[in-house]
């Protein structure tokens, strides 16, 4: 800033009031000392010399309505007094955030736009306290969130963007188990259902594990070879897709999901595992006791053990196992004639 600028600004800074324009275009006169507590306003005054008169009123961001401004100024007015004890400030803060949720959200937004970090932290903490410990229905109710995830989506695993082959292997096993349990269910039903498209791709991916074990469709060698080839392609595709998704850095849930339903099926299936004590897991996860009613417990146990055993082995001797796996050609050369337990014993 040049000397003349400084000379111009200095007398302005002496003035006790600044003019602020809120989102509804109304202009208010506010004590300068208090308004300066907000970094954005401070910046406008010092760097741009605004706010000294009605004509050059500082235009506040559109998140700041007159009501919000009044609240924020109350906050600033209290806290900018240096003599207050920490206890006093805390107690004021507690009372300050006892407002209805809608205003609390508006206030957070307004404080954020003015870069008033202490107030943002305070209001966020209040909002966090509102969210904590509540069921999703309650939270949706409070914040008017649309319940726009389908039942399936809620239970569908979130996309796993890792390319770690070990985790993918484990995921495949989990998915295979889930599929087998579904198969059991279907066997109990009299009607023969149509094959879903989804199942088909799961089939393709898992055929090399599945083999002959309990597969009602009857696996033939030629069919396996076809599946194997298709599966190879699928694998390539999905890993390519995964790679491209990582590059895209697209965070929007919709887009990612639509692009690769196959990748989702390979992906982390047990994300809800740690949430299984929650009320809102309506459809049973494969580990839940509910689904066991209809399945032969002995067989289920056997599958359980296989999976756990496999997981444990992987966990404990990962480096050596990976060497073995990679050298034996994990994806391509699994013996189709072996059943799952035999295959597992390879390790």
């Amino acid at each position, binding site marked *: 800033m040049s000397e003349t600028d400084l000379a111009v600004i200095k007398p302005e800074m002496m003035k006790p009031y600044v003019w602020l324009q809120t989102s509804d275009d109304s202009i208010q006169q506010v004590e300068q000392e208090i308004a300066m507590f907000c970094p954005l306003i401070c910046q406008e005054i010092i760097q741009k010399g605004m706010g000294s008169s009605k004509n050059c009123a500082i235009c506040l961001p559109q998140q700041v309505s007159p009501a919000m401004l009044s609240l924020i100024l109350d906050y600033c007015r209290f806290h900018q007094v240096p003599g207050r004890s920490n206890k006093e400030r805390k107690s004021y803060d507690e009372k300050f955030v006892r407002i209805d949720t809608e205003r609390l959200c508006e206030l957070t937004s307004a404080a954020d736009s003015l870069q008033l970090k202490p107030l943002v932290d305070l209001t966020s903490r209040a909002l966090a306290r509102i969210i904590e410990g509540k069921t999703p229905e309650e939270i949706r109710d409070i914040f008017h969130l649309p319940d726009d995830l389908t039942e399936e989506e809620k239970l569908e695993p*979130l996309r796993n963007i*890792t390319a770690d082959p070990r985790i993918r292997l484990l995921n495949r096993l989990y998915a295979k188990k889930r599929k087998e349990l579904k198969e059991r269910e279907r066997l109990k039903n009299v009607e023969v259902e149509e094959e879903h498209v989804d199942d088909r791709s799961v089939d393709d991916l898992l055929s090399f594990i599945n083999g002959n074990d309990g597969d009602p469709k009857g696996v033939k060698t030629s069919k396996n070879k076809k599946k194997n080839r298709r599966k190879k392609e699928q694998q390539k595709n999905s890993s390519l897709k995964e790679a491209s998704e990582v590059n895209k850095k697209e965070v929007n849930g919709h887009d990612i999901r639509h692009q690769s339903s196959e990748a989702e099926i390979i992906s982390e299936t047990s994300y809800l595992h740690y949430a299984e004590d929650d009320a809102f897991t309506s459809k049973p996860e494969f580990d839940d006791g509910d689904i066991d009613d209809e399945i032969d417990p002995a067989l289920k146990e056997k599958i359980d053990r296989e999976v756990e055993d496999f997981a444990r082995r992987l966990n404990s001797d990962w480096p050596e196992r990976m060497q073995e796996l990679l050298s034996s050609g994990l994806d391509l050369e699994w013996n189709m004639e072996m059943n799952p337990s035999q295959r597992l014993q390879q390790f």
Partner: protein
Amino acid sequence: MVDVMGPDLISDLPQSIIESILVQLPIRDAVRTSILSSKWRYKWALITQLVFDDKCVPFSNDREVVEMSVVKFITRVLFLHQGPIHKFQITNSKLQSCPEIDQWILFLSRNDIKELVMELGEGEFFRIPSSLFNCRKLTRLELSRCELDPPHSFKGFVCLRSLNLHQVLISPDAVESLISRCPLLESLSLSYFDNLALTISAPNLKYLYLEGEFKDICLEDTPLLVEISIAMYMTDDIAEHFEQSSNCNFLKFLGGVPNLEKLVGLIYFTKYLSIGIDSVHLPIMYHNLETIELYQVNFEDTKEIFVILRMITSSPNLKELQISGSSNIPVAVDAPDLDFWEKGCLLDSALNKLKTMKLSEMGGWPHEIEFIKYLLCRSPVLETLSIIPCVFDMENNLKMLIELVKCRRASSRAEVIFIHE
């Protein structure tokens, strides 16, 4: 079905606010928000702070079960997470050394980790993998019950500001070189170290906290130190070392800290400083020193008293003094050397800023009483003197009270509060 609820209050707030909210939730609640609506599906995955404490998985009495579910939970969260992770904290007493932790640290080292706090449960010490030393952006490191072995090629953490090692197995050379290779280090805390002779060279260091069996502490290059807290434990080894030492510890320790504002010394600290105290000739002034707290002072040892007086003399702006006696001393057989107090040259100037004095574990010994008298005469603005006697000896307490009542006071406002259970 259309909801007639009203506009969505929260989903369209900027991610920085959402992060601010989610980070103040326990990690489980934060992850559960993925179920709220389609917009919320991945909001949690972008938060930059992950804190896993004892409550992050459901409680169970079986430690192994809990450990397994903690490991699973953390692994899944990490794999589903997107974007940088600036803070990662595990303070879980059920989690012990396990191979997954290596992979987590490797993962974090690739994700711009800035603050790492690991406090595992009692049990086998976890050996920190070398990938930790690749975390170039680390600003805060806090480890508990681990083994740390920096590679020879390690050039230090250039951004590290805060280092806290508690019960960490690390060679003394490695500690010293770690400290000296972190140029921005401001806060250092080392606790439960055995038999360590430490030289600290940290030009930006402001806060120092040491607790353990230290043979020797030399503050070689710490001009900016503002707050020091030392607790020195004793072993036979160290006691021998003390006896044979010919250093002046007072100078070695407090010689280069002109900006000191607060000093706290516990257990054998005063004894440590008393070694070689006679050879301190020139006073070093601590103009900013406002608070001195010394615990477990042996009033039978005139050298230790001398240390205190020396410190007080050098601190013209001292406001608060807290001294705690040692209830551990055997009753003196010889008559105490009260000539010490007659010497007069000890403290000429008054303590013009001393407002609060608190003396605890006072056994009513002659030296203690002289000490109190001595200070009372020289603190013109003293407001409160609290005395908490040692509970064992009632007779001595009474004697002490009688003597105190007789004391001359320089400050007319001084309140002498005798706290008696």
